[in-house]
């Protein structure tokens, strides 16, 4: 009778090879020495690289040979580009906030952590009548859920979460209330305070909106 291709129990697949029980394995000692060699090798290599400053850069040499441990918090990995960090308020070229106090962000905010009080530009300012500015702009970072809806809602690219800084722990609640001045001081990933999107001020030829002088 022909043997079944599936074996006596009708199981498909190759059986796993049992580990060899050689004398060297059964007498423990050679295997222990081998294992010791591996741990000691790791110890010497890592210690040498640590002492001589030859460790792989855990960020830029991440797929190179060897282990790449980030010794957090001594070493930190920069957050990726799309990471939603602590907010910042961007500036125009003249240093005033881009924000026009339209309240879109505070309306969109599901955590209701943004508080804005709008102010009017003074009489004679070209922007008066077109836009307002935030007299107060306060974000409660403790209440914020970092959803990024405020950034999506902003029509002026005035609020961004591209600081690359994660929310910092403080020891009192007051310190989590970020006011306008602090938000304006937060740098972006390129350590600047503006954005890539150009802004066209009222009165400039490139300004796309209604111009009361022309109409």
């Amino acid at each position, binding site marked *: 009778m022909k043997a079944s291709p599936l074996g006596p129990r009708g199981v498909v697949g190759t059986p796993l090879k049992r580990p060899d029980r050689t004398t060297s394995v059964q007498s423990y000692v050679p295997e*222990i020495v081998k294992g010791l060699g591996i741990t000691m090798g790791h110890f010497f290599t890592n210690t040498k690289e640590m002492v*001589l400053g030859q460790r792989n850069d855990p960020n*830029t040499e991440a797929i190179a040979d060897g282990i790449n441990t*980030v010794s957090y*918090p*001594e*070493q930190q990995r920069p957050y*990726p580009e799309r990471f939603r960090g602590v907010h910042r308020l961007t500036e125009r070229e003249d240093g005033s906030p881009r924000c026009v106090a339209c309240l879109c962000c505070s309306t969109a905010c599901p955590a209701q952590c943004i508080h804005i009080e709008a102010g009017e530009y003074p009489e004679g300012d070209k922007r008066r009548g077109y836009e307002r500015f935030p007299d107060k702009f306060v974000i409660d970072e403790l209440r914020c859920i970092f959803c990024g809806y405020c950034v999506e809602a902003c029509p002026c690219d005035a609020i961004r979460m591209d600081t690359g800084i994660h929310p910092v722990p403080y020891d009192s609640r007051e310190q989590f209330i970020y006011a306008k001045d602090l938000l304006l001081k937060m740098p972006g990933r390129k350590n600047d305070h503006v954005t890539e999107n150009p802004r066209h001020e009222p009165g400039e030829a490139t300004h796309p909106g209604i111009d009361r002088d022309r109409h």
Partner: protein
Amino acid sequence: MNIWDVNIWPLLIIAKSAFIVLFGMNLGVLLTWTDRRQGAMMQDRIGPNRAVIWLPTRMVQAILVLGALGATGATLLAAQALRPEEGAPSTLSALLFGELALFLSWFTMVLIASGAHARGARNSFDRFATGLAAALGGARFIALAGMLAQVALFFLIVASGGGEFGETVREVSFGAGAALFGLAAVGGSLYAAVSMHDEPRVGLRLAGLLHPAADGLKTLFKEDIIPPGADRLLHSIAPFITFFPALVVLGVVPFGDALCFDTAPGQPFTVKSLSTLISQVDSAGVCPTGSTTFKLQALDLNVGLLYFFALAGTGIVGAALAGWASDNKFSLLGGLRAASQMVSYEVALGLTLVGALMVYGTIRVDEMIQWQAQNAWGIFVQPFAFVLFFAAAIAESKRIPFDLPEGESEIVAGYFTEYAGMKFAMFFFSEYIAVVSSSALMAAIFFGGWHLPFVDRSAIHVAVGDTVYLHYAVSHGAIVVLGVLGFILKIIALCWVQLSIRWTLPRFRYDQLMRLGWRTLLPLSLLNVVGTGLVILLLQGASDTVASAVRYLANLSMALLAGGGALGFLLFIKFMMKAPNKKQLLSSTSAEYAQARGGTHSRRMEA
């Protein structure tokens, strides 16, 4: 009564006992930390190293600069004193100054270059140093060039001989060495002082060595909890019963060869007698008659090893008592486990050494070391017993892979579940002291104790068979110091191997542990006894040819050790010089940001 006439013999006895106690305890403390640090290093982590003492920057700067100036001044004074009235300085002093200066120079340069490379250049000098290091091929090549220069200088001075050229070489090495030493010391410390200028305070970290001290302080001030149902007295004395024997067994281990003083044994031993240290002792292993022998051993007991086993057995009582007195089922189970494990392995521990005792013909540890110094190290005579003893010793100190008395998933912390604060720390600590004392015993019985290959009682004597290759007389005191250092190094190396085993092997199951103890180690150690006895009987009746062959083999084993040591050192240098294999790959925006910042630099965190 004059202070110079006081008998200081009791003080010397107290001093050597204190040395042994402090050695055991300090090494034990260090091991508690090294164990964690080493485990971290194996996984490429840094481990506990954050303990720090903050010092004002100005103070550190002052210490650095003044210290360097003081060292330079002392060196120049020493150079002045060592300089002969006329003629060139001696070979030894020329070598001393030249080599020391070269070493300090390249070492300082390597430190500056690698430091600046690791944390990024902070000032123009850093940029200069990194640029220079890069031009020379990196810090590794500065080290290589420095070492080569040292070797070259050594051969130049030794080979140049006594002629006019040799005198010039020694003159230059001596003078330029002293100057370069000062330059490197002052330059290095000025660099360090300037580079810490911007920091408001400087942390004293000692490579993380403050961590065990911080841990000790913490446990000392923690609350000491005794469970309500516990036996208060037994619960309190159990840690001491465990701790004490682990430490005092070190007493029978001699740390060095006996010192011989040329003072009559009956005379009071005064401070002046210290200067009568005999410089040349014949290799008979005893001091000349009419001289005082000072043994570097706290307890000169004729029961020797039996004392070790008797006290090691006492440790069992501590563990069992702790388990029973805690009024906790986990503790009781752990105590029983510890007791039965230690009793089982006590048997194997004693029997494995019987073979060694038969070969050495003594149970006094100092005589065993003398036997090994005259013949061959125990590892060559009783290799099998060493493996068995090593396994039994790890089991006896209840460490991984034999840490069955503890076990978070089974019986919490075993017999010390109900202990807190310093009492817990004492259990923890006595485990490490047991590692130290078993390492000391292994070093004494299997690795020649304070004996170093080809180092006689008062000479470096290289001989295989009847051929003498080198004989260089060294004073006996220097050899003893060398021996003590060698013994301490051997203990540290063995401790390190024991720690590595902890990070390598998984633990046994309890029945496997018992089977290993009773059904493997015990019969094997009995076999070892029988085998050793047979070989001894055969050798006793052997001819002169066989005896001289055995002697030749014994000498060869010493040559093997010395050659292995030298080869190991060369391999170590080669390993240190090996360039790391690095490939840069910016695979994410995160990596790109890191690259834009000039790589990942680590910042020091505060404790």
